[in-house]
């Protein structure tokens, strides 16, 4: 419940404040968005499974974002940043699809 309220507050804040992204952060933005989506769908799935846990929500979101950012940063330093981004996006997209499939099975029984 609390995270859902947090989500709505965050969306409202974003719409009101119009945050600008600093230039050095821009390469990480797509990665951060995909990691965030993964956390949201994972949380939604666990709510439906009845095993939602605030602690795991916090840790999984933060670690997803940090690990994804570190991988892309390392890749940038090694000159393979775009390939690393692709890898991160592929893995996180797979997770998103798996989570959405589970949610779908819960909601639509299909």
């Amino acid at each position, binding site marked *: 419940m609390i995270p859902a309220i947090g989500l709505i507050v965050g969306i409202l804040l974003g719409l009101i404040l119009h945050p600008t*992204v600093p230039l050095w952060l821009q390469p990480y933005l797509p990665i951060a968005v995909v990691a965030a989506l993964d956390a949201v769908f994972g949380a939604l799935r666990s709510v439906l499974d009845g095993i*939602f846990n*605030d602690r795991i929500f*916090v840790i999984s979101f933060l670690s997803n974002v940090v690990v994804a950012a570190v991988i892309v940063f390392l890749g940038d330093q090694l000159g393979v940043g775009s390939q690393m981004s692709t890898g991160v996006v592929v893995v996180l997209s797979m997770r998103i699809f798996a989570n959405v499939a589970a949610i779908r099975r819960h909601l639509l029984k299909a």
Partner: protein
Amino acid sequence: MGQLSSNPSLDSLLSDAVASDYESAGADRHTSPIIKVLAASSAVLLALVFIAAVVDKREQSAQVNSTRQALIDRIQAADKRVAQAQKDVTQSNVDLAAAESAHLAGTSLGEQAQKRLEVLRKATGFSELFGPGLQVTLDDAPNAGSVPGSDISLGKVQDRDVQSVVNGLWASGATGIAINGQRLTALSAIRNAGEAILVDYRPLSPPYRVVAISPSADATAGTFRDGVAGLMLEELSNKYGVVWNIATLGDITLPAASSSVNLSGGKQ
């Protein structure tokens, strides 16, 4: 998902990657307030990241749009300046002609010079030319098409066809020629650029109307038809289906050559 692959290590890779984070620990009914605050703030952060990404993307595309609009505006402004400058040139030419005739009129020497200037201007395409005209119309064959695998196009009028028509008309006694409204001068070029024929670097589109003025238009038409150019056109029409005809027009006016040609002529 695991059934798709028979390789156990690939299986575990896929199932580990997509496993739910929450399955290891069950639902926790007794979360501490700190965790709750953290969860709420990460949810806020998460939504903020999402909105920031969307806003950022939109702003970027807005910037691209405004840059493009600025470039378009600059091009249009430059076009307008060119048009204005061209108008100025035309006006100055008219003024120049008026000043010249005012200056030369009165003395017999001046009038002689004036007459000679007029003859030269008409011959060089500097001024308009009025007189009995004839028109040679050339058009691509109705079934014109390119030969597959080569850049030869059958039945399309080429630059050299137009060139021979123009040369034929000069040889038959024409005193001034314009193609699709473009007056030819001694410096005019007729050439191909890709699919189009350029006259003085301006593209023409078919049909090509070569208009000539000749003191004796009927005789010129006859000479042209029986000359090299006329025979060549006959051949083109028999072999490739190129459409052409020649007709006398009565009294017509040919426009002066475009100012750029005069300028380039003046430099040489």
